[in-house]
C-alpha cells in the first residue's frame, strides 16, 4: 500500500500552488504530468480549481507588522508580540500548528525564521511568538524595534492535525519541552472548545523556564512538572499513559522526545495516535526549496506541506 498522506494546503485559498504549476502537486495525478485522474482525494479537485483559475495561483504575501512588545524572559529567550492589520489574515493564523516566517525589516529573504504562532489575541489582532536566540537570523529579529516582515500563514507545524480538529470529549495528554511549549497553547485552546479533558506536562528543558505555564493557567489548565531526562518522570509518564484512559498524545519537543513517547505507545495493546510537532527544517514553506525533504518508504516527502501519521515519520 502506498503512503497515506495529505497536503495541508489543499482546498485552501493558497491551493493550487507552485507545485501544481510545475507538475509536482502532492495530491493530483494530472498535475504530476500523468494522463489519468487518480488523486489523493481531499474533498476538492485541485485540477479543476487550477483550470478554472486559468493557471493563476494565489501566493502568500510578505507584510510589514509593527512590534508592540518585546519581553526578555532570559538573555536568550524573548516573547515578541506583533500587530497584524488584516482581520482576514488574523483568522487564517488562528489554528493549531500555524507558523509564519519573520525577518527584520531591511534584511534579505534568507533571514526568514520559521516561528510558531504561540498565541493569538483575535480581538486586538496581536500575535505572540517565542524566539530562542540561536544565530544571526534570530538576533536580527530581536534587534527590530518597530517593524518586522511577516510571510504566512503556514499551517503544517504539527503532524496529525486532523485528530485535534475532530476531537470531542476525549482525554489528551500533552507534553511540551523547551521552545516546543510555544505550540501547545493554541492546541489546548482548540481542544478546550471541543470539551476535551487535558493533562499537560511541561519540561523547561535547556530554557530553564516554562514559557506556556502562565497562559495555560489563565485558561484554566494547570500543567504538571516533567523532565524528559529523569528516570522518575519517565516512569511517571508511562503510568499516566497506561493507567489513565488517554485517547491521544501530543508531543511538542525534540524528535528524541517524540521517539521516546512513540516507543511507549507502541508497547500498548490499544492504539493511541501520537500527534507531534513538525521538527523538519522549514525554509520556504512552499514545497520548493527542499530543506524539509525526507525520504520515507521510497518517497521524498516535503514536510512543510505533507500531513503524515507520526508512525510513518518516526517508524511505527
Amino acid at each position, binding site marked *: *500500500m*502506498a503512503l*497515506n498522506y495529505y497536503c495541508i494546503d489543499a482546498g485552501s485559498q493558497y491551493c493550487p500552488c507552485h507545485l501544481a504549476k510545475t507538475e509536482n502537486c502532492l495530491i*493530483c*495525478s*494530472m498535475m504530476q504530468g500523468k*494522463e*489519468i*485522474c*487518480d*488523486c489523493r*482525494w481531499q*474533498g*476538492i*479537485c485541485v*485540477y*479543476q480549481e487550477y*483550470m478554472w483559475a486559468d493557471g493563476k495561483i494565489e501566493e502568500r504575501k510578505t507584510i510589514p507588522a509593527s512590534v508592540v512588545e518585546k519581553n526578555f524572559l532570559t538573555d536568550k529567550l524573548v516573547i515578541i508580540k506583533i500587530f497584524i492589520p488584516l482581520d482576514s489574515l488574523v483568522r487564517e493564523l488562528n489554528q493549531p500548528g500555524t507558523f509564519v516566517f519573520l525577518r527584520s525589516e531591511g534584511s534579505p529573504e534568507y533571514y526568514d525564521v520559521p516561528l510558531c504562532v504561540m498565541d493569538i489575541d483575535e480581538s486586538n489582532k496581536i500575535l505572540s511568538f517565542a524566539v530562542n536566540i540561536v544565530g544571526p537570523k534570530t538576533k536580527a529579529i530581536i534587534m527590530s524595534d518597530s517593524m518586522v516582515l511577516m510571510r504566512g500563514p503556514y499551517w503544517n507545524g504539527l503532524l496529525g492535525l486532523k485528530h485535534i480538529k475532530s476531537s470531542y470529549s476525549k482525554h489528551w495528554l500533552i507534553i511540551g519541552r523547551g521552545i516546543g511549549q510555544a505550540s501547545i497553547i493554541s492546541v489546548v485552546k482548540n481542544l478546550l472548545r471541543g470539551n476535551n479533558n487535558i493533562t499537560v506536562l511541561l519540561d523547561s528543558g535547556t530554557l530553564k523556564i516554562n514559557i506556556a505555564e502562565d497562559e495555560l493557567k489563565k485558561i484554566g489548565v494547570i500543567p504538571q512538572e516533567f523532565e524528559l531526562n529523569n528516570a522518575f518522570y519517565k516512569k511517571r509518564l508511562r503510568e499516566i499513559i497506561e493507567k489513565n484512559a488517554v485517547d491521544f498524545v501530543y508531543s511538542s519537543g525534540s524528535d528524541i522526545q517524540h521517539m521516546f513517547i512513540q516507543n511507549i505507545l507502541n508497547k500498548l495493546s490499544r492504539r493511541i495516535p501520537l500527534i507531534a510537532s513538525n521538527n523538519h527544517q522549514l525554509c520556504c514553506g512552499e514545497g520548493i526549496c527542499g530543506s524539509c525533504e525526507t525520504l520515507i518508504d521510497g518517497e521524498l516527502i516535503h514536510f512543510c506541506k505533507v500531513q503524515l501519521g507520526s508512525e510513518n515519520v518516526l517508524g511505527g
Partner: protein
Amino acid sequence: MVKVVVIGGGWAGCGAALTARKAGADVTILEKTDMLLGCGLVGGIIRNNGRFTAAEEAIALGAGELFQIADSVARHKNVDFPGHKHATLYDVTKIEPKVREFLEDMGVNIKFKCRAVDVRVKERTIQGIMLASQEIVEGDEFIETTGSSGPMGNCLKYGNGCSMCIQRCPAYGPRVSISKRAGVEDLVGRRSADIYGAMSGSCKLNKDTLGENIKRQLDEKGVVVIKIPEEYIKKEKLSMKVCQQYALEEYATNIVLLDTGYAKFMTPFFPLEDLRKIKGFENARFEDPYAASKGNSIRYMSMAPRDDCMQVIGLNNLFCAGEKSGPFIGHTEAICTGILAGHNSVRKALNLELIKLPRALAIGDMIAYVNEQIKTENGLYKRFTFAGSIYFERMKKLGLYETSPEAIKDRVAKLNLLGIFKENLIIKQEKVAGMYNNRF
C-alpha cells in the same frame, strides 16, 4: 466460509453479488455513495434489440432476478424507437429500493458510503481492501465493479468538466482503480489518437417541466421524437458519444425522449437556453447530469485486462465486470458480465474449474469477442453492446439474436447450462467432502 468482496454497487456489482451469494459465499458490497445501481439510477433501457436475448439467457442460466425486478418496475414494455425494437423502460425512480431489499433479503451485506482507496496485496493475491476511513475489509475473492467513468480530473481533461452526474464524485470522492492499485495497469479507451475516454450519451429532463403534450405522449407511449430546428443540430456530437447504438442520424436531427420516470434525452448534453427555444421545452430543466447544459461524464478510463472467465490477468483472486471489464455499454452488459464474475469467484475460492460461457450464447460470445477486439489495433476505439452497432450486427449475422424466451431457454438447455448459476457450490462441496469423510 468463502468471503467475496464486491467493490462497487452498480448493476455489475449487484449481478456479481447475486451469483456469488447464490453459490453460497458470504458477500459484501462496498459502495462509495448512498445508493446501489450507479449509472442504473439514471439509465433505464433494457431488452432493446439483442439485449432481449441476453436478458433471457441470464434468466435461463439461473441468474435472472435483476431483470425480473427491472421488468416489475417497467413503465413501458415493447417500445420501439429509432433503431431499436421491443425495449423495456424501467422506472429509475423506483428500482433502487427494490434491488437493495432483494439483495439484503438474500443476505448480501451492503456497506454504503465506503469508498475503496487502496489494496493490501501479497504475492499477487489481494488480502484486503482499504477504505477511505482506513478500515481494511478482508476477503478470499474480490470482484471489482468500480466502472470506468470519471473522476473529475478525467471529465475535465477529456470532456467539458464535472457536470454533476449521478456518480457524485465531489460529494462521495472519486472512483479508485483497485486493479491498478494492485499493480495491474489499466486499459484506457480512446475516441481519437490523442483523446481518451468517451462521453456518456444521454441526459435526463424533469418530466414535469415539459409541455403537456410531450408529457402525455411520454406517459402513454414511452417515446417522443421531435425534430430539432436546423440551427441547433450538432452532428459532431455523435462521434463523441459512448453509446454507438444511438449514434445515428436520427439522434442528431431529432430530440428522442424516452419515459424512464425522467424524460431520458438521447443526446450527451444540450445547452438549456437553446433547448428552451423549442416548443414544449420552454420550462425544461435537467435532472441528470445537473449541468447537462455543458457536458456529461467521461467513461472507459479504467478497464482491467481479463480472461473470458472474468478474472483479472496478473492477480490470483481479483475478478471484474461491467465497464471495468471492457468497453461495454449498458445495464444488461453489466449484469451479464457481473453474474459470471460472481459465480466464478466462488469456484475459484473452492478450487473448482472456472466457467467460460460458450460462444453459442450471446453473453459468452460477447465476453470473448470483446476480449479479442480490444487486442486489435483499433480495439480501444470501439464500444460493445447487445443493443446496436457492431456487436448487434454480429449477433444477427451469427444467428445469436433471438426474441423467443422459449427458444433461448432451449438453447441454454441444449448446452446443459440451465440454472447453472443457481447451484450452491459450497453446500455441494461440503456434501462431497462429507461422503469422503464417511468412507474413512
